[in-house]
C-alpha cells in the first residue's frame, strides 16, 4: 500500500484508458503522455496497461508501506526518497516507510510514478483511470491509501533506456488534416502552419486551448464524433485541442487531428509555451 501524504496540484491514477465505451458517451481518459508512462512501466517490466500516478505541475508526497520497485518518467520534478535525490527513468528500490517527495519542476509538465505491477485501485469499465461519475474518486487526496502488489515484477536488468529529449523541447506538433480542414480558406490554412500558437491558461486533461485567434467563417457541424487530438475551431476563432478526457462528440469544425505521438508531446507543455503545427501525410 502507498499512502498519500500530500496530493500535489493535480494527481490522478491513470492507465491506458477506457476503450470500447464511447457509444455510452464515456471518454477514453488514460495517461496524457503515453510515451513517458509506457517508459516507466517498461523499465519496471510491467504490463503496458499498468496503472501509474500522473502528477501535474507539482509532485505528490507518498509513503510506501511495503517494499517495491518504482520508476519515475516524464517531467523532471526533482524526485527524492527520504530527502535523497533519485534519478528519472531508473529502477529505484523502496523499503517500508520510505517517503517519496518532489521539488522543483525542471522540465515537462506531467510526471509518472509507476510501481512494480502497477497500482491496484478498482477497475471500472476495463480501466483504473479516474474520471468524474465513472470512478469514485476524480483526483488523489491526502490520506488516500493506494493498494499495490506485494510481489515485485522481474525487470530487465541493464536495459539501455534512452529518453528522447525532443519529447520535452520540441515545439513541433505533427497533425493530419481534420474532416473539415478543406472548408478553411487557403490563407487560413497557411496561417495554421506558419504561425506559432501560444498555449492558454485553459489547459487541462480535457483540452488545451490556444491564445491566438484564427478568424474564420466556418459553420458549426451537425454534432459528430471527436477524438483525443482533434483540433476544433470555434466561430470566434479559438483553437481547442482535445485531450484524453475529452467528450465523445462535438459540434465545432474539426480542422486538424494530432498524431498520437504529438498528443504525448503536447501533454508535457503548459501555458505560455508555443507550438507549431506541422502537416504530415497519411
Amino acid at each position, binding site marked *: 500500500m502507498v499512502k498519500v501524504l500530500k496530493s500535489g496540484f493535480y494527481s490522478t491514477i491513470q492507465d491506458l484508458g477506457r*476503450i*470500447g465505451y*464511447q*457509444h*455510452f*458517451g*464515456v*471518454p477514453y481518459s488514460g495517461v496524457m503522455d503515453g510515451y513517458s508512462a509506457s517508459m516507466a512501466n517498461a523499465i519496471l517490466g510491467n504490463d503496458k496497461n499498468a496503472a501509474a500516478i500522473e502528477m501535474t505541475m507539482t509532485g505528490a508526497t507518498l509513503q510506501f508501506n511495503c517494499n517495491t520497485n518504482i520508476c519515475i518518467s516524464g517531467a523532471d520534478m526533482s524526485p527524492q526518497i527520504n530527502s535523497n535525490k533519485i534519478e528519472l527513468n531508473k529502477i529505484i528500490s523502496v523499503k517500508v516507510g520510505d517517503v517519496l517527495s518532489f521539488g522543483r519542476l525542471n522540465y515537462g509538465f506531467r510526471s509518472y510514478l509507476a510501481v512494480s505491477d502497477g497500482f491496484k485501485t478498482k477497475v*471500472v*469499465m476495463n480501466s483504473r483511470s479516474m474520471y*468524474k*461519475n*465513472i470512478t469514485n474518486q476524480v483526483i488523489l487526496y491526502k490520506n488516500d491509501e493506494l493498494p499495490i502488489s506485494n510481489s515485485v515484477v522481474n525487470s530487465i536488468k541493464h536495459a539501455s533506456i534512452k529518453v528522447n529529449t525532443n519529447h520535452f523541447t520540441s515545439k513541433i506538433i505533427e497533425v*493530419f488534416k*481534420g*474532416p473539415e480542414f478543406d472548408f478553411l480558406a487557403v490563407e487560413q490554412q497557411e496561417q495554421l502552419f506558419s504561425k506559432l500558437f501560444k498555449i492558454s491558461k485553459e489547459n487541462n486533461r480535457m483540452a488545451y486551448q490556444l491564445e491566438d485567434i484564427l478568424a474564420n467563417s466556418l459553420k458549426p*457541424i*451537425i*454534432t*459528430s*464524433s471527436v*477524438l483525443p*487530438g482533434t483540433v476544433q475551431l470555434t466561430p470566434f476563432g479559438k483553437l481547442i485541442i482535445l485531450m484524453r478526457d475529452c*467528450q*465523445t*462528440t462535438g459540434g465545432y469544425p474539426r480542422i486538424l*487531428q*494530432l*498524431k*498520437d505521438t504529438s498528443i504525448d508531446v503536447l501533454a508535457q507543455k503548459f501555458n505560455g509555451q508555443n507550438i507549431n503545427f506541422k502537416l504530415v501525410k*497519411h
Partner: protein
Amino acid sequence: MTFNLTYKPYGARAILIEWPAVIDEVILKDIIRFSDVIERKNIKEIVEIKTAYNSLLVIYESVCRNYENEVEKLKNYYFSKGFEYDNMSKLWKIPVCYDAVFGIDLEAISLAKNISKEAIIERHSQVNYTVFFIGFLPGFLYLGGLDELLYFPRKETPKLSVKKGAVAIGGNQTGVYPNESPGGWNIIGNTPISFFDIEKSNPCFAKSGDCIKFHSVTIKEYHNIKKLVDTGVYQMESEVIDG
C-alpha cells in the same frame, strides 16, 4: 435504401464515414444498419465504432497501413446483401415531474413564448422522441422530435451545476442530464430514472434507434419512484416498437 457516402481518414487509425448533412430518421436507420453489419463481422483490428447524427467513425487498433484497402472493404460491407436489420427498438416511458421545484426555467419559457406552462408540459410529453446516439456526457441521449413551438435558445451563461435527472430544452433539442454537471439548457423538470448506471453491465438502458416518451408525475409520485430506483427495484416501462 442506400446513400451516397463519403469516406475520410480521421487521424492515422480511424475512418470517418459521412451521410448527407441532415438530421433524419431514415439516415439514422441506415447508420445503425451499417454499424451492425461491421460489428457482426467481428474484425479484430476494429476496436470501436461510434455513431452520431450523420456519421460513423470506425476506429482501428493500430495505424491503417492501407487506407484505400480498408475503405474498399467498408464499401463492400455497406452494399452487402442478405443482412436483415432486426427492428428490436424499444419505446421507454420516462416519468418526469414538471413541478416548479424542478422545472426552474418553465416560468421563463412560458412568459417569453406566451404559452401556458400546462401547454408546454403537454407538448413536451406527447412526443415519441427518437434516440439518435449517446454522446457529450456518459449516458446523455441526443433526442430528435422536439415540438417546434418549444424551441428555446440556450442560456448565454451556462449554470455551473445542473441537477442529475434534469429534463431540459436547448435550442431545437430536448434532453436529460444523466449526472450533475455544468449546463446551458433551460430546465423544465426532473426524472427520478437513472440514465447512466455504472453498476450495470449495460449502463444505458436506451440505445440508438429507441424512443423515449416522457409522462408527467406529481412530486409525491416522483419521490415514490425515486425510492424504488434508489433501492434498485424499479421496473422500467417499455414496449417493443417497429423500427
